């Protein structure tokens, strides 16, 4: 035996209580790890090199307002803009209103959309087939897998915004990152059926020639349409996606306050358990001191015990969070909302540090009192 193994034996001497402590810490740390990961995915993740070259223009007032299609060529004329493609939210119903049957559908220009999104992978023959078929659809692979769509399958989308049902044939299946689990079709299809859809675009997605040009070009576009009846707002793709998150409310404050509440609650629970467990061992503390254990060694033994339990719980929680988030990210039911939220090594380390800190703080006061205990009083302690 050595001191660490003595500490470990003490930590698990009351198996049920230790297990409950570990579990409650692991649940809190699970929550905390998920919160940190979501935060990181939303606010800290750098966009991929390709995404950093993409900017989005929309109507200044709201996404619900459309812009004239001639903006496309005016934007294209700005130096540094390589590609421009309109993307129109179709919002059709597939089969029924069940959440698992909801996914994003965009009417766009098949000739250019894969040039803006250079990181999407598609077979050239499939792309060509889609470009030839005005009633064709290109679907993202995870979405296709979920609905068991194959090339040549028919998909009917019942129009909500536009009075037309889109009857499409799957012509291409492409690979994209998790944020883009979408179905694309030729906007002309809608425009032919619904004349008032003609000549309008919901958003424009652009590819620019360098990340440094993003701010300049965004400013130039918005300046160009400032006094037009449909003014614009242009931002990076990342900022645009965060805009959706912001629609949920003050997400930062929400995540932060839940995180703090979780940590504080577990601190109290753990402090209470440690105080109880140390008080029960008052006589043993006196014995250890009689054997020659110093104040410092008693203090570090108890604190070590608590930190050990907490880190154990933290590890459990963090790995459960990792597993849960990877399951959630690949689930189309989440619509790619948690796509960026992964438990990375730094997140894991932060979570474990928080766990260790909880262990340390919760045990410090009772351990300190135990270390100061007078042997005479400890030996006379009944209980």
């Amino acid at each position, binding site marked *: *035996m*050595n*001191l660490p193994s*003595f500490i470990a*034996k*003490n930590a698990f*001497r009351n198996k049920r209580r230790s297990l409950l402590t570990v579990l409650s810490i692991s649940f809190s740390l699970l929550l905390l790890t998920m919160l940190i990961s979501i935060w990181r995915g939303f606010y800290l993740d750098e966009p991929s090199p390709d995404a950093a070259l993409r900017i989005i223009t929309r109507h200044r007032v709201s996404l619900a307002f459309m812009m004239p299609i001639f903006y496309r060529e005016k934007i294209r004329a700005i130096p540094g803009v390589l590609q421009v493609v309109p993307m129109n939210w179709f919002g059709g119903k597939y089969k029924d209103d069940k959440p698992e049957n909801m996914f994003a559908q965009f009417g766009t220009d098949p000739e250019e959309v894969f040039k803006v999104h250079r990181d999407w992978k598609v077979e050239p023959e499939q792309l060509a087939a889609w470009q030839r078929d005005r009633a064709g659809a290109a679907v993202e692979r995870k979405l296709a897998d979920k609905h068991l769509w194959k090339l040549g399958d028919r998909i009917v989308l019942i129009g909500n915004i536009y009075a037309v049902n889109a009857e499409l044939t799957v012509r291409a299946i492409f690979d994209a990152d998790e944020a883009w689990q979408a179905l694309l079709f030729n906007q002309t299809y809608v425009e032919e059926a619904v004349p008032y859809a003609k000549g309008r675009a919901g958003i424009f997605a652009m590819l620019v020639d360098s990340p440094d040009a993003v701010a300049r070009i965004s400013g130039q576009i918005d300046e160009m349409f400032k006094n037009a009846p449909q003014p614009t707002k242009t931002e990076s793709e990342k900022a645009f996606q965060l805009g959706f998150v912001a629609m949920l409310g003050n997400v930062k404050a929400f995540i932060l306050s839940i995180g703090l509440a979780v940590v504080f609650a577990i601190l109290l629970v753990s402090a209470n358990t440690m105080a109880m467990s140390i008080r029960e061992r008052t*006589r*043993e503390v006196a*014995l*250890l*001191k*009689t*054997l*020659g*254990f*110093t*104040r*410092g*060694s008693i203090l570090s033994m108890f604190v070590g015990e608590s930190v050990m339990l907490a880190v154990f719980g933290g590890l459990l929680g963090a790995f459960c969070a990792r597993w849960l988030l990877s399951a959630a990210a690949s689930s189309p039911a989440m619509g790619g909302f948690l796509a960026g939220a992964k438990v990375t090594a730094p997140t894991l380390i932060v979570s474990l540090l928080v766990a260790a800190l909880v262990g340390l703080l919760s045990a410090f006061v009772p351990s300190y009192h135990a270390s100061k205990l*007078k*042997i*005479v009083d400890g*030996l006379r302690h009944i209980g």
Partner: protein
Amino acid sequence: MSSMTEDLKKVATGTRSIVQARSISKVFRRDSFEVTALDKVNLDIAEGEFLALMGPSGSGKTSLLNMIAAIDQPTSGELLVLGENVFRFGDKEIARWRNEHIGYVFQTFNLIPVLTAFENVELPLLLTRLTRSERRDHVMTALKLVGLEDRVDHLPKQLSGGQEQRVAIARAIATDPTIILADEPTGDLDSHSATEVLEILKRLNHDHHKTIVMVTHDPHAAAYAHSTRDLEKGMLLPV
């Protein structure tokens, strides 16, 4: 005061004296009232002595033992143990000194329930510089001495009271201390186990030259000692 200490030290260098108590008193103050646990006790214990301390409950026996073990400090008087005024030391030095020189045996054994017999005996050795295998040798020697080498992996709850007390004695002697202090070591034992424990103490004194101070109520136990002193209301009665 200081000249008195000098005198005591001179005595200590002659025939080695293990404990020299000069007029030590212990007063416990709790809120408004005071208890005098020890009242001007003078006591000399020579090396190799086996002393029994007797006296009614509350007469100060445990308090005296605690002073010798440097567990508690006298309120007044001079106390030298192994020629040292231990209370001059800081917390760390006192702890190390106790680990090295004192073996303490309690009435209620005080074994750690989650540790095996072996591990309980090893506990004080964790504070020394001994290697793992040296610790193992010490533990096994101590357990053999108390006749429990075949109970190494037993937890306290798997042992009888007499066996638990023998493990506790093994723990007390594991660091090879000079002094063994036993506070009513047979108080919780049946007479058979008590005899075993007393035989072990006698052997430790006779064969291993340990100085032993044993508190007891039991005249049969006291008979194992070389000499007996009586305490009453905190005062040591004359021989």
